[in-house]
């Protein structure tokens, strides 16, 4: 299984990996690259990561989501490298018996990913400039609680 990848994210692949006939509910969250940011046109972007930690953070977050919520399957992948408008930067796939649990778990996973995953977004604007977006200080499972 892969967590961080520089290949386009394939939803079908994660749906296959998580196939589970005991589950009736599937929730997917995808973050996709928008064509604007704070009023400026965006032409593309790239993500860089501290990979030795990032793979482990996603793997641990999948496990934590499975433990915290009554859900049967959880997979998370994050893209690195250059992304075009409309491409997915992140995919979260959750399967459960009850639909409310799948929604809650997917939301928890993406909310938590945002403060724990060591990745950095670098926007390319349509005027040719580039800029790192500011973010949130990195947290660990310990520092949050």
């Amino acid at each position, binding site marked *: 299984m892969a967590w961080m990848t520089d290949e386009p994210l394939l939803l079908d692949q994660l749906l296959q990996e998580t196939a589970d006939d005991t589950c009736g509910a599937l929730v997917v969250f995808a973050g996709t690259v928008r064509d604007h940011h704070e009023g400026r046109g965006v032409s593309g972007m790239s993500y860089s990561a*501290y990979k030795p930690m990032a793979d482990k953070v996603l793997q641990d977050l999948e496990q934590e989501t499975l433990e915290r919520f009554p859900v049967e399957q959880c997979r998370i992948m994050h893209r690195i490298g250059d992304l075009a408008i409309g491409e997915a*930067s*992140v995919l979260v796939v959750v399967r459960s018996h009850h639909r409310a649990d799948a929604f809650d778990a997917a939301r928890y996973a993406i909310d938590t990913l*945002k403060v724990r995953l*060591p990745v*950095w*977004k670098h926007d390319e604007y349509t005027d040719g400039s580039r800029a*790192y977006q500011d*973010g949130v*200080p990195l947290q660990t499972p310990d520092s949050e609680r």
Partner: protein
Amino acid sequence: MLVVEFYGVLQQVAGTRSMELETPQSEQLTVGQALELLHERVPGLSEHLPRVACAQAENLVRRDQIVDTHRPLVLLPPVSGGWRGGNGLDD
């Protein structure tokens, strides 16, 4: 000697992906002390250092922990993964 690695905007500010930092011989150094040495060497990092997380290998290290000088000290600025919403940070 300690290798320091920069990620994200810190690469831009430091003008490099990594640098070697002279450290006092035969003396243990905390992460916090290493950051002070780095600050003297690259004053432009001053506004970033308070919000930087530090790692060695796949683990975060606190400022009061001793640095393993055989491994790079990795500086991780505020992160922006997942997805950035319509109006900034928290969405």
